[in-house]
């Protein structure tokens, strides 16, 4: 009698475990709930004009016709308040507008802060030592790194311009701004964030870099005809510092 009871208990436990073991699979098959996400994007613009491809032409205040060839930016220490979102991210105009995408909702966000560039300690450390998925790893940073000294290129803006107002397309004036060195490191913060519903449970915070502001920020102007190149070498550093200040002002949410 006792034996029979034990065996029956075993049977019940066995079936229970078997069903339990199968439950996970059943649950996997259930439709997964889409987790809400927030996405931070970046767009190069000239005033209100989106520079969505390398063939879009904008006209500067001086009447120069210009195309954006490439814009890349390294942002570090991206934070929502005190909460670290990502140690580093690279925006690359050739690779799409998403800068960062994380789980959460806009209500979780109080503010957004980050550095434009890399602080002096990281800037001169071994670029091969970062983990593979870190934006500052030399494989990911690639052409955004010069060498251990001077370190990373914090942002680059490359334009090609037609500076002759003669009605003939002749985009032959390259403009190259490669801004880096510790002196051009800047930090910025956004509050009162304006989130947009992008559908699919994604809320977007859209940042833009307004090239109009990059070239003219109050009294701080850059004439692409004469100030057309910096690689942040010592003699070029004043232009790089001016561009770093203007870039910070040009970077806004919209």
């Amino acid at each position, binding site marked *: 009698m006792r*034996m*029979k009871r*034990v*065996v*029956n208990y*075993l*049977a*019940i*436990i*066995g*079936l229970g*475990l*078997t069903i339990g*073991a199968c439950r996970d699979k059943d649950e996997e098959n259930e439709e997964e709930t889409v987790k809400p996400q927030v996405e931070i994007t970046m767009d190069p613009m000239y005033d209100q004009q989106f520079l969505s*491809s*390398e*063939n879009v032409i904008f006209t500067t205040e001086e009447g120069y016709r210009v*195309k954006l*060839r490439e814009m890349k930016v390294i942002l570090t220490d991206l934070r929502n308040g005190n909460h670290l979102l990502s140690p580093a991210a690279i925006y690359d105009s050739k690779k799409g507008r998403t800068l960062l995408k994380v789980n959460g909702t806009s209500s979780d966000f109080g503010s957004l802060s980050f550095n434009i560039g890399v602080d002096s300690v990281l800037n001169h450390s*071994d*670029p*091969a*030592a*970062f*983990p*593979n998925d870190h934006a500052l*790893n*030399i*494989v990911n940073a*690639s*052409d955004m*790194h*010069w*060498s*251990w000294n001077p370190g990373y290129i914090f942002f680059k803006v*490359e334009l*090609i311009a037609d500076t002759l107002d003669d009605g003939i397309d002749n*985009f*032959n004036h*390259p*403009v*190259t701004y490669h801004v880096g060195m510790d002196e051009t490191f800047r930090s910025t913060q956004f509050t009162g964030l304006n989130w947009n519903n992008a559908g699919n449970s994604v809320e977007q915070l859209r940042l833009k870099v307004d090239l109009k502001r990059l070239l003219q920020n109050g009294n701080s102007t850059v004439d692409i005809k004469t100030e057309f*190149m910096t*690689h942040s*070498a010592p003699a070029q550093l004043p232009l790089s510092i001016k561009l770093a200040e203007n870039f910070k002002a040009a970077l806004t949410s919209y």
Partner: protein
Amino acid sequence: MKLLPGFIGVIVLISACKKEPKIYEPTPYSLDIPSHFPDMPIPADNPMTVEGVALGRKLFYETRLSLDNTIACASCHAPSKGFSDDRTFSVGVNGTVGRRQSMALVNLGWQQFFFWDGRAKTLEEQILQPVPDPTEMHLQWKEAQKRLENDLEYKRLFVKAFGTQFIDSTYVAKAIAQFLRTMISANSKYDVMYKYANNMQLTPSEYQIYQTVSIQEWAGYDLFQSLNGADCFHCHNGALMQVQRYSNNGLDATFSDLGRGAVTGNTSDNGTFKIPSLRNIEFTAPYMHDGRFSTLDEVINHYSHQIKISPTIDPMIEFAFQGGVQLDANEKSLLKAFLLTMTDHSFFTNPAFSDPN
């Protein structure tokens, strides 16, 4: 009879817990990553194994992967030529001539795109292309698969590497990719100079090499890194001696080969090509995507005086408007001395990379 439900329950329980028998247990391959290199990203679906690498090495030298059994991967990527080809254009089966210079195979595990025009995004994807290409090995993968399956040795090696006797192009590509990822070159004089210049610790043997670096080689290094010197570092930099992007380096004013532009259809990519590593450049002539330069002197002359302006010229070529960086004879000689420091003899002669057949 009354005990039956209990027994059934126990049997169900046991069978639910029974694990699938393991078919194969490949040995993990441990890559020896140089101290000044980043970790190598390995694709999750193609982990490195000793058996996979051994199979890949054999396949790399396998001529049966070509239509007439004459050409292997190594035919156009020969160890003695820096895993490149000294012909301007490689010759495929039946003498068919290709249209671009064979790229040197080095440190491929860190590359983010492949071919001069970047049309392959992964190493595995790249390896799939030369076999059926009519200008290269010109063999349909189905036929290649049949040939390998008829070879008992290969069947055994595929079982050991991937746990399957079924051979297809995917497994072939995975095996060769594993082998190619082991081909790390980081043992040149330049590596020692790079580590020294960046305050990295040198081993005793590296210190000995450091003491042999000549004044001319250091002067060439400075020129290479200088904006107002040879200005090479925008494209050739770091431990890999390259940056990973495309560039129009001023070879032509108009393009007979659109390069990256033919892949993207974007006119702003016309005439741009993948920037190659300069490692072992002493042995990888001829140079450029079309092999137009036979010697390093010709290459240096190009960047000094022969840059041609076109709408997509790389803006990094700062002195393009005057034809180049205008190096004088002495500077050219110093730059060449530095370029020769990138030779890694141990790489070509490494027995682990030689033909096992």
